């Protein structure tokens, strides 16, 4: 049976869906951002950046939905075998991920506003400008956006590497409980529904 909500041992269907949807969107988003930054000024640059902005807003909304859902649900516990520093690292990585998934779209949105290019969501809704045109702020935001995006890249590598380590080295449930499929209770953790 598909569980929508999280339990103490497993991510529910909604959390899983949001996780993998965002993983895919973030992959596309990084590609669009790199392409948009490197294209010469032309119609394809406008189109690429327009899609990058629309997708960024989508990711922002999804990140907020995820945080809300996370607050309303139990969070699966980390495997009991983890050392204290590993727990701290896991927490820091996840805090950083959520922070970046909010900060990146917001800095991008400020960038566009400061440059005098209003943002729309897929040509459907025009968003308000967050700031007035301001070249100095624009340049500061470009730098911030690049630094944050690079940080996100590094943290994603760490995140994926940790998932691989949990699955193939530690042989625990950390990756499996983010995947659909039959429940397999880790021997060290009790399911709170029992």
């Amino acid at each position, binding site marked *: 049976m598909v569980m929508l909500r999280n339990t103490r041992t497993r991510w529910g269907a909604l959390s899983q869906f949001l996780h993998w949807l965002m993983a895919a969107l973030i992959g596309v988003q990084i590609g669009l951002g790199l392409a948009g930054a490197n294209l010469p000024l032309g119609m394809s640059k*406008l*189109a690429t950046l327009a899609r990058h902005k629309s997708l960024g807003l989508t990711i922002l909304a999804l990140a907020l939905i995820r945080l809300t859902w996370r607050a309303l649900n139990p969070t699966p516990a980390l495997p009991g075998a983890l050392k204290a520093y590993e727990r701290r690292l896991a927490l820091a990585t996840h805090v950083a991920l959520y922070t970046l998934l909010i900060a990146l779209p917001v800095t991008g949105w400020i960038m566009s506003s400061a440059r005098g290019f*209003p943002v*729309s969501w897929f040509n459907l809704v025009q968003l308000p400008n967050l700031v007035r*045109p301001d070249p100095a702020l624009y340049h500061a935001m470009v730098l911030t956006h690049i630094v944050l995006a690079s940080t996100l890249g590094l943290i994603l590598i760490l995140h994926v590497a940790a998932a691989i380590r949990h699955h193939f080295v530690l042989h625990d449930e950390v990756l499996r409980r983010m995947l659909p499929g039959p429940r397999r209770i880790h021997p060290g953790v009790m399911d709170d529904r029992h």
Partner: protein
Amino acid sequence: MTATDTLRRITLWLTLSACTAAYAGTPGPTYTLVAARSSLTYTFEQAGAANVGRFNTFTVRFDPTAGTLMVVIDMRSLDTGDGQRNDLLGGHDFFDVARYPQARFTATRLQKTATGYLATGPLTLRGVTRTVEVPFTWRTTQRGGRAIGTLDGATVIRRLDFGVGQGQWRATEWLGNAVTVRFALDMTSAAG
């Protein structure tokens, strides 16, 4: 003579005086622009969002009595609020301001409407001349012995009619064809 009669006489006298003054005022004054209090902006849609810019230098002459309206825009005064965008829109593919430094509109017909006027005439932009219709409102007040007028309105033109957008910029999926031109002009009578 009663007070009412006196009042009637005064009213009649005032009315006649006003009519005479109005008649003497014909032909009316030609109005010219108070540039510091006037704006000429354009808006087009870029990827679903409004992209706004302005022209800072232009002249307008308007004579409501004679029915003449002439607008000359210095295309080099294009101000998009962004250096790169100024270069792009002022460059060959868009306004090509080096070759076409002026845009010009002359009303050949000025019709009175319920709220103001409808001016019809040729607009020359980027070397292409097409007839456009420009509705506007017109209000006048007296200030310091001068007639002050405000001329406000907007019209929509299609940029591709004038070749604004060459080559790849002809596509309208990400850069709309419709451009709204808005003007809010403060004008003063030349006669003073």
